[in-house]
């Protein structure tokens, strides 16, 4: 499981994460939501051991984050994934399994499975520098899963994926969670969170505003609309100003050139 207790992280005078508590349990798919600059990526980086908290504790599978044991358990897909341009997708996957010390036969089988799952057979033996964004993203997902992590942390998972790949990834998240893996997913796509997550956490200005299932969140906020409205109510309590000038849905402007064309 992932466990953050009273975690604070400051960047100079700016407090990116403010006394944050969070638990994500084995077998659970947790969606981490928040506006830009809310502290989601900073929190994820602390879970992955890339940043250390100023105070509080971050534990992964019972180990302090940033220890070798914690990193052994973790599969991480960052918002801006890194691939070696001069490696092929297959060579990159081999490097990852070698790094995690997988037994050779098991590693070959696992790589083969993931190439099939993510439909990478056509390009996996080409250099990564020739891949499109979506191809890269699929290789990175495969690399995060190739060592059978017990905890999967994903920052903005569907960026650059076509609808078919997005479907594969979404199914995979659910199957990982159902097989006992702890899945933490940060996203701006509220529909994805609504569709997949067992629990949702909404963070703003580094503080956890609400956590729970969608029903629990609705009860907490006393708002029974869609997640989008609930999110906006929690993080700003009003619609963004830009929507104010749009005509209401029930009364379209019939004179507008777009509609009258």
């Amino acid at each position: 499981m992932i466990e953050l207790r009273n975690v604070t992280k400051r960047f100079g005078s700016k407090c990116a994460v403010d006394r944050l508590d969070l638990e994500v349990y084995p077998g659970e798919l947790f969606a981490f939501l928040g506006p830009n600059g809310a502290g989601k990526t900073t929190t994820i980086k602390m879970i992955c051991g890339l940043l250390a908290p100023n105070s509080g504790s971050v534990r992964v599978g019972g180990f302090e984050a940033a220890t070798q044991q914690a990193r052994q358990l973790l599969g991480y897909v960052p918002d801006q994934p890194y691939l070696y341009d001069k490696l092929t997708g297959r060579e990159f996957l081999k490097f990852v399994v070698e790094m995690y010390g997988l037994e050779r036969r098991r590693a070959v089988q696992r790589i083969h499975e993931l190439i099939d799952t993510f439909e990478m057979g056509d390009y996996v033996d080409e250099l990564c520098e020739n891949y499109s964004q979506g191809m890269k993203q699929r290789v990175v997902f495969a690399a995060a899963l190739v060592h059978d992590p017990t905890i999967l942390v994903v920052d903005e998972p569907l960026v650059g994926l076509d609808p078919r790949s997005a479907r594969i990834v979404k199914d995979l998240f659910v199957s990982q969670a159902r097989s006992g893996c702890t899945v933490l997913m940060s996203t701006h796509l509220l529909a994805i969170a609504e569709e997949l997550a067992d629990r949702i956490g909404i963070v703003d200005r580094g503080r956890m505003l609400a956590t729970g299932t969608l029903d629990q969140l609705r009860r907490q906020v006393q708002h029974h609309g869609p997640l989008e409205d609930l999110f906006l109510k929690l993080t700003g309590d009003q619609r963004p100003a830009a929507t104010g000038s749009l005509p209401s849905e029930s009364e379209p402007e019939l004179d507008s050139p777009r509609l009258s064309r």
Partner: protein
Amino acid sequence: MSLALPEPKPLTLPPIPADQTARALRQLRWCLTRNTVRSLLSGSRLRMSMILICSAIFWLGLFALFLGGFEFIGMNDELFNGIFESLFSMFFLSILVMLFFSTGIITYTALFHSREAAYLLTTPATTDRIFAYKFAEAVGLSSWGFFLLGSPLMVAYGLTARAPVAFYAMFLVYLLSFVLLAGSLGAIAAIAVANLFPRRQKFVLAAAVTGLLAALVPMGVGLWRTPGETLSSDWLSSVQNRLAFCQHPLWPSRWMSAGLLAAAHGDWWRAGYYLMVLSAHGGLGYLAAAAMARDLYFRGYNRVQGGRSARRRVGLYALDAFFHRLLVFLPRPVRLLILKDLRTFRRDPAQWSQFLIFFGLLAFYFLNIPRLGYAVQSPSWRNLVSFLNLSVTALILSTFTSRFIFPLLSLEGRNFWVLGLLPLRREQILWGKFAFSVGISLGATEILVFLSDLMLGMSPVMIALHVAMVLVLCLGLSGISVGLGARLPNLRESDPSKIAVGFGGTLNLLVSLVFIFAIVTALAVPCHLYFLGQEHPDSTRLALSHSGFRFWLSLAILTSLAIGAIGTIVPLRIGIKAFQRMEF
């Protein structure tokens, strides 16, 4: 608020063997090297051939220079025995300082700012393993130039001193140990800076450079004021005394020079002793750096990433307003494009620092011309040196235009969705780049060439000729880089250095070199023959009389103007046509 949950029990994990990650990283390095070499061989043969040929020419040129110099010194036995230890100590001390800084800077960037390091830190690799992997890369990048410079030096010395064959094998081991020691010290400094001054690396670098200058300037002034006639034995002896600090027994450079000289003379006991001292310190330095990385790398990474916010405001808007007023004769959209490029140039130290270093070194050399005694040499000698100086200035300018101007259009292509929507004709974008390039180039090179001619005591007519030549060269080199940059863009690459070393960049450099050669040769040959004829009217068959000189010089000026016009207009026209047809 902390939650009162029971402490979860950690999972039991089989530990990853210590050498497992090291093996994975070794295989990664091997795969990356193999694939890079394959890509180079299959995709950029022209570039590879150019690199190999230029390296070979550079090596042979250095070797010939060193061999000639050493043989000249070797004519005087007394000088030969005394001066080499001093020369080598000074040379290796300079290299030690340079390797320390370059490895330190590369290690800092590789460990604390690269995306690869961020990725590796999420894997089970320990921090000292990651350090070892990145350190090898940093040392390779920082020291290849030293091997290219040091090997012809040592081979030339070995031949001059008639050294035994084992000397050549030994100096390689010496070079490796020396590089390891200097690199380790640089890496220790890099980790210390990240831990003590996170996100203040520029301040630390500036302080270090200031400290270095504070040490070097008094020494330079001291050398400048060395009494006696330049290159006389008294003068040399005084210079040696002033540089005696280079031979302090605690300097690794001293161990290097003393050991190599001993090996060249077959004194194996002494050579082995110094090699052991050097390699032991190199090994110790590396161990210290690895231990420091094990304990402080993550802490430093966290401090660098978690320091004050990277967001900052940029100023100097008064400078922008000044340029706006200065370029008022240009159409406003073109002016705005130039201003955008100027801002990018100003805010990217990688661009202006290289520009400043190369042209600063040239300016330093030109200022030292009187000290070297060139100004009192014969007119033909001064004329030759003035053209050589002009050529060097143009060559450095061509590397600048190839490295920074050529990629501009490729980089712009990535942002074309912005530019494409502006109320501009496409060719105006190219004219903006051209004006930017000519402006920057002219500003630097005209001053330098004027300074060189002034220091050489050239006549006003020759100064005017050189200044006009520089104008033609700047226009041509800018036209070539902008035109070819538009004709052969690389829209997939975001790194300008990679664009510059691709096929288009290499071709751009080659065309620029041919252009410089054509312009300089056309004007230098009649001038040289004229000045030579003035000194030796009877002995030089091809010497030009005054009237002959006027005719040939006029012809040369017309030829160089024609070459300049072709070099400027043709590539620009090709570029404009290609740019107008280009789809983004």
